[in-house]
């Protein structure tokens, strides 16, 4: 069976000393970045694109998966120690993690968070292995209308749930799609909006745009908001959870991981929402709900298992349909595109070895993440004290080096700066950035396939072909749900 040899090759590749070294270093890098307040896993991924580009695709993507796992997992450190989620994913962890640290049980809190993160990643990884190929087999039969409908569904779901107001989410998504039209059209080779600049004929580069939007804008923010909160004392006890905490929470582990996986599959909800929903469910299912929020271990497990499980869920939809569910997976997909790899259902057909290496990288990353955090969590926690005055200028220089290394063009550095400023200004105004990047990636997919559909088929395909009809119906339902939710929230506020 050809699939078996691809699996064995991928397994051999991921377990090779070089690959384990790459994954190990990347996990540590992700943990360090995730543990520093203000720096996010998304930012780490954006910064790594140029490094990934200089490696073979399997190593480059494995590195990014490892940073993703490490970054999300380490968000718990700052949530527990300084009451500030290192990444948005760890928002719910604050509720019980910080009270535990104040009670002198920071080690126990971190240990439980680490093991829950591991369990969440592994369980969602199993779901990824089981369900992604089936979904991809189904998706490979898609024609132009299905691809357009799926992309519209991905886009509307993102817009529907992002930002305080729908208009802000729509604004950034449309802006992203519009910026993506700059340069030569892939359908007919006609150049659009190049303004006589030859650099613009190849469009706005994905790498400088991503690094500007997610790294430079974040640096502008942290450079000025440089106050560090006071830090809770990390007790001298071991950083691992008592066996009783694990055995007594078996149901919580499984339920939270499955919730996280399912929420991860839904575009744009992301790991932060997964943690919050799972936390609420754990509280509802508990015999002692009053203990939640006072330093209760099940609260930490629910949040951390779910936010890590969202990684596997997001990868299911990203790898099979090419829909980036959240900014980190958008960057991962962007990295695959930069490597010249076709994303979406054809990825499984043309690059099954790469897909398997992503699976194994996810598992290897979660094991190494747990080992590193349990063994060295006490020392890694010290990075939360690194001042911005050291980090910010060095990270910016790193952005410059990374962007320039892509095409050796100073023009790309200008693009990075412009998008850094745009990202910062939008973020300050409460405009979500996720729809921008998702619009940037999905816009060309919609346009190209729509134009081909109109040449080889017709609009009626959207309703006569069942899959595209279902996805368009889902898109409409998603928008209607969004309107209903906002209206009911407004009514509650009134």
């Amino acid at each position, binding site marked *: 069976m050809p699939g078996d040899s691809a699996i064995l090759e991928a397994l051999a590749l991921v377990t090779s000393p070089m690959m384990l070294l790459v994954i190990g270093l990347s996990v540590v890098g992700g943990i360090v970045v995730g543990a520093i307040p203000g720096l996010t896993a998304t930012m780490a991924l954006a910064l790594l694109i140029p490094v990934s580009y200089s490696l073979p695709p399997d190593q480059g993507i494995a590195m990014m998966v490892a940073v993703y796992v490490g970054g999300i997992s380490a968000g718990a450190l700052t949530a527990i120690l300084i009451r500030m989620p290192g990444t948005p994913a760890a928002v719910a962890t604050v509720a019980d993690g910080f009270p535990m640290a104040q009670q002198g049980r920071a080690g126990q809190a971190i240990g439980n968070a680490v093991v829950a993160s591991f369990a969440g990643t592994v369980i969602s990884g199993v779901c990824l292995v089981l369900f992604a190929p089936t979904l991809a087999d189904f998706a490979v039969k898609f024609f132009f209308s299905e691809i357009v409908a799926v992309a519209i569904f991905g886009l509307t779901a993102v817009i529907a749930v992002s930002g305080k107001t729908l208009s802000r989410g729509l604004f950034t998504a449309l802006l992203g799609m519009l910026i993506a039209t700059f340069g030569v059209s892939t359908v007919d080779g006609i150049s659009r909006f190049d303004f006589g600049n030859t650099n613009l004929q190849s469009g706005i580069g994905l790498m400088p745009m991503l690094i500007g939007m997610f790294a430079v804008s974040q640096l502008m923010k942290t450079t000025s908001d440089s106050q560090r909160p006071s830090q809770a004392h990390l007790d001298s006890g071991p950083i691992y959870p008592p066996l009783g905490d694990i055995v007594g929470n078996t149901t919580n582990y499984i339920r939270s991981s499955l919730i996280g996986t399912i929420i991860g599959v839904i575009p744009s909800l992301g790991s932060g929402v997964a943690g919050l929903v799972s936390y609420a469910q754990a509280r509802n299912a508990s015999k002692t709900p009053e203990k939640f929020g006072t330093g209760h271990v099940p609260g930490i497990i629910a949040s951390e298992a779910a936010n890590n499980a969202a990684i596997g869920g997001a990868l299911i939809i990203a790898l099979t349909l090419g829909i980036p569910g959240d900014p980190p997976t958008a960057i991962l997909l962007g990295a695959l595109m930069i490597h010249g790899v076709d994303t979406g259902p054809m990825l499984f057909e043309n690059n099954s070895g790469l897909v398997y290496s992503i699976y194994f990288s996810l598992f290897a990353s979660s094991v190494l993440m747990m080992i590193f955090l349990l063994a060295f969590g006490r020392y890694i926690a010290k990075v939360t004290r690194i001042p911005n005055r050291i980090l910010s200028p060095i990270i910016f*220089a790193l952005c410059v080096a990374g962007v320039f290394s892509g095409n050796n063009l*100073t023009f790309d550095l200008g693009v990075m700066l412009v998008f850094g400023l745009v990202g910062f200004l939008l973020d300050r105004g409460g405009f979500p950035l996720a729809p921008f990047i998702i619009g940037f990636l999905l816009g060309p997919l919609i346009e190209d396939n729509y134009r081909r559909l109109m040449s080889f088929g017709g609009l009626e395909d959207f309703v006569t072909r069942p899959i595209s009809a279902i996805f368009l119906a889902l898109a409409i339902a998603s928008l209607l749900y969004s309107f209903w939710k906002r209206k009911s929230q407004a009514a509650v506020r009134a």
Partner: protein
Amino acid sequence: MSNYDRWVGLVGIAFSLGLIFSSFGIETPEWGDVVGPTFWPRLLCAGLLAVSVFLVIKPDPDGASDRAIGFRHFFAFGAAALYVLALPILGFLIVTPVFIAFGYLAVGANTSRRRIGEALFAAAAGTAAIYLVFQVLLETQLPSGQLF
């Protein structure tokens, strides 16, 4: 009431109108597909224009006042822009340590002798680390200037 939404809306209106105007200069080939290269950008411009007008007319009642933009933000951006502009003239290896040391002192807002020493160390170590990773390990190029 958020004036921020109004400003963003006005920028959006100007941007979309500018692109609609510019789209009339896009060449439309006779041999092309049914839809053509201008349909999609114009559709998006129309959408952006509509949303921008909405933002101007009905801005979000929850303003962005808690996330104000201050002088320090633009100072940080200005320093970054100067750094990028100086790269093609002086080169990465000269401009980067200066930028890191300056950034260290500017963000820290303290120029004691000890801080200056720390800044110089951070500048040298940071530049060396980036050079090692990109130029030596990954064998990629760093921006070279006319001087170096």
